[in-house]
């Protein structure tokens, strides 16, 4: 399958759906975000009066988004900060439950986030093992790919840093290692959240290349980015989200041009 996709880019036109979002709504509930009186007596009052919702604020992050993604497509998600892009990805990955509506997927989509939680007090070495196991790789698979993960991250270019705890890393180094761990696995439906924005220029180039590779192997790729150039380079279809609503869905050029026109003002 991987070969076929790499040889034939027009596989994008095959109409096998891999992800269907059907009127998806996502609501976050935030405790302590209430604008009313925040005193202890007020909180007690609310508990006594049995009004649990008073202390909770609801944030309607995604409001009724529907689309169908097909095998071989690389789909970009654009929109201003807080427009619900990352939230939508998490819902597709099944990590955040939808309030209303449903997401159907082919297999288990994987979210490639640079935020994947690793432990700062552990050495980079142990984090590679832990991160790999958390993604569902076996010990043998991780051992096999260990060297390539470390080499790719470039952590050891400045000395033997992989055996130091991650809290001693600079933020850029930590982000590079996280990306390298996450990118070590092959995925059916792959979702990438702002991954290209990490690290220095040479690492960005390497990670872009790796994402193109992953894209060849994966059925469908989603990419969240604020970098319109990387969206243009990697995606053939773009969804434009604004305030949790799907504003536009179409070919990359068309949507990105409209988005740039809107943001240029």
């Amino acid at each position, binding site marked *: 399958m991987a070969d076929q996709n790499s040889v034939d880019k027009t596989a994008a036109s*095959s109409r096998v*759906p891999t992800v*269907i979002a*059907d009127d998806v709504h996502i609501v976050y509930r935030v405790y302590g975000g209430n604008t009313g009186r925040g005193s202890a007596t007020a909180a007690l009052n609310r508990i006594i009066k049995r009004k649990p919702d008073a202390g909770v604020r609801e944030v309607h992050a995604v409001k009724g988004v529907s689309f169908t993604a097909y095998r071989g497509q690389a789909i970009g998600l654009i929109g201003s900060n807080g427009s619900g892009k990352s939230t939508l990805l998490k*819902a597709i*990955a*099944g990590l955040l439950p939808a309030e209303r509506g*449903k997401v159907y997927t082919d297999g288990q989509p994987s979210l490639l986030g640079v935020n994947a939680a690793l*432990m700062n007090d552990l050495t980079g070495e142990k984090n590679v093992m832990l991160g790999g196991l958390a993604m*569902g790789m076996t010990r043998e698979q991780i051992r096999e790919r260990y060297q390539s993960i470390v080499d790719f991250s470039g952590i050891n270019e400045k000395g033997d840093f992989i055996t130091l705890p991650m809290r001693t890393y600079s933020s850029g180094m930590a982000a590079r290692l996280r990306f390298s761990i996450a990118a070590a696995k092959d995925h059916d439906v792959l979702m990438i959240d702002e991954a290209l924005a990490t690290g220095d220029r040479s690492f960005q180039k390497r990670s872009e290349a790796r994402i193109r590779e992953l894209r060849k192997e994966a059925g469908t790729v989603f990419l969240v980015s604020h970098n319109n150039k990387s969206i243009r380079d990697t995606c053939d279809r773009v969804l434009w989200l604004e305030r949790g609503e799907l504003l536009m869905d179409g070919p990359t050029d068309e949507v990105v041009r409209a988005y740039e026109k809107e943001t240029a003002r």
Partner: protein
Amino acid sequence: MSTVSETTHDSAVALSAPPSPDDGLPAAELAKKYGLAVSGARPGLGEYARQLWDRRHFIVAFSRAKLTAQYSKAKLGQVWQVATPLLNAFVYFLIFGVLMDAKRDMGPDTYIPFLVTGVFVFTFTQTSAMAGVRAISGNLGLVRALHFPRAALPISFALQQLQQLLYSMGVLIVILVGFGHFPKLSWLLIFPTLVLQFAFNTGLALIMARAGSKTPDLAQLLPFITRTWMYASGVMYSMTDQLKRAHAPEWVIDVLGANPAAVYIDLMRFALIDGYGADKLPPHVWALALGWALLLGLGGFVYFWKAEEQYGRG
């Protein structure tokens, strides 16, 4: 695999039906036609257990990592694994052994091992419950980033506490030998007791994890509950002796003796300490120990699984 025929087949479909026959098909039917599944749906109980088993290496690695990370900033490092329980036992000895003189019925050779066993065994359950409450709510980043059966988190926290207890048991054995309680056959009872208590603790951690993910306030409340529980479990004094002295009715003694923490503490003391005979154990003690382990272990697992798809919400 014939690449060419696959490709022509694909493009043929695209050409012959520019507006695909799938257009206008409701999402649910389209999904069904191509065999797509609802994302993030909760698997069946058996399938869930199987997925969990597949992640066993992650569970073990995560608990070990947490354990080493715990003291990695301290200068003494892993020495604290042993020093913490030792200091803990010393503080209780100072208060209950020296200041309040609770050892009058037993003599120091029995009382100190009695106290230290009680503290260590109870701490095992207490810390499992505390870690359970924060297992989901404190790891929301991980829950929202990666896909794995969520029960892996509370289970791995309970496992971390078990490893912590094993360090404490090492300290305990040194104390026991120091006070003249040498290894004997009954020490083998440690293993069934630990297995049962671990099952109980894991179930407790699972229940606490689900409750704590919905109601984070529980983390504030729990220390008070566990402290009350500790005083009611006869950690520092013999509960039975105290109640008998106060002429409490027989059923009160039996009910308090059936409390799971007391059951596991008593069994461990019975296994390890010479002067602590079967007469101090509540009736049907092994049945109680097994019952609590099964009830919480299985019940907690099912209870946690029921909300599996909700944990990402926080």
